């Protein structure tokens, strides 16, 4: 186990440097990129804090939609990500064959995708101010 500062604390330090030192000191495209970089650091920090919960929710939703309760949920994060990609590929195949064009499965699918997209938006949190 690594020493403090933790990853979260280190990221917060980088973000503060970018916002409080780099952005005011820079001009033009570099200033803009420093602002974008600070936002990217915030995205990383939010993803670190929420990824386990979000992956679990997406996996459960996909299992409910596609069946396959027999398939065990991978416990290791990289494997879980890969498994989710594979199940989303399967979801896409079902959509493309017309399975979701109407009916209760469509409603369940839209509910699931709305939850997943809401989780992803929580991580990316688009800036509201016009650029």
């Amino acid at each position, binding site marked *: 186990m690594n020493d403090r500062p933790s990853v979260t604390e280190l990221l917060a330090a980088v973000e503060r440097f970018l916002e409080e030192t780099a952005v005011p000191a820079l001009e*033009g*495209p570099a200033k*803009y*990129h420093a602002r*974008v*970089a600070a*936002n*990217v650091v915030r*995205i990383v920090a939010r993803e670190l804090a929420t990824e386990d919960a979000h992956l679990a929710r997406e996996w459960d939703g996909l299992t409910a939609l596609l069946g396959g309760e027999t398939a065990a949920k991978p416990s290791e994060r990289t494997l879980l990500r890969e498994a989710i*990609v594979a199940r*989303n*590929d399967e*979801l*896409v195949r079902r*959509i*493309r064959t017309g399975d*979701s*064009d109407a009916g209760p499965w469509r409603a369940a*699918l*839209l509910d699931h*995708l*709305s939850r997943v*997209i*809401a989780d*992803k*938006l929580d*991580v*990316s949190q*688009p800036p*509201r*101010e*016009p*650029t």
Partner: protein
Amino acid sequence: MKPDEMAQRLVAFVAGEEGIATHAVRATGLRRLAGGASREIWSVDLAIERDGGVESLPLVVRKDPAGRVGDGGDRSVELSVLRAAYAGGVPVPRPRWGTGDISVLGAPFFLMDRIDGEALPRRLLRDDAYAAARAGMTPALGAIAARIHALDLSQPDLAALPRPPADRSPARAEVERVAASIQQLSVEPHPVLDLAERWLLERAPEPPRIALVHGDYRVGNVLFDASGVRAILDWELVHLGDPIEDLGWLCTRAWRFGSPLPVGGVGTREQLLDAYQAASGTVVDRDALRFWEAFGSYKLALVFIMQSRVFLDGRVRSVELASLGRRTVEAEDELLRFLRGEA
């Protein structure tokens, strides 16, 4: 290329285009303006000595960056369209010279007049100084769109533009084009985009007629001052197609910046359509507008995917391009509103 060298090359190019000696052209103040991810924009002042006088030209250079996204958009097409728009009374910067020859600046570019004004939507949406411009923006954009869509497609500057396919509507062709690109460029599955593709194909409208479509008609591409619109910028995505595409793109959620007003955060669809219909005589089908508004978010998803691919492939390693991949979800969020029947 260093700015000094770029300035010298611009001087030689303009002198060549004008058929005058290189020493009769001087370039000063060349500098890069803060620009987008897919285009370089430079400011330069030219002084051209001719017939005993000196003509001063404040200009903008629009140039492709090296390693750019392969998204169509040919600088020579943009230049001739700008000529047609300028001649047709559309407010645009006067186009001057340009070339697709990459030996001059390393990438295609052209020069046009530099018009003073503001281009930041934030100022238009929030600053008191622009209250009048804000109030008049939506009707003005409706009337200007009508003027763009009325340009005569048989004129020489527009005759070379490719016609949309004859066997299906521009709407269907556009959905198919975007779907194919998403398929090709996306590095992960996007179920929402597959659902959106089916939703859009089912609703693809017939065009009222084929017209010149600006292709990126939104408040962020309007140069304005306190009194209103000075110029419509960024014609790089211009094409022939369904004119309602421009109106739908203008209403796309991404350009509202959190405002409840659908037209770029400054106006209502009714204001837009009233002005457009009054100026064009075309009655806009509301379902067609809704289709094109949804299509706007679908296309935006592709833009984000495409730009993040430029980063992922290592062609341009900027933090801005890197961050755009995480914005695909915003377009998917909006598409879900259409899919759930809420928009």
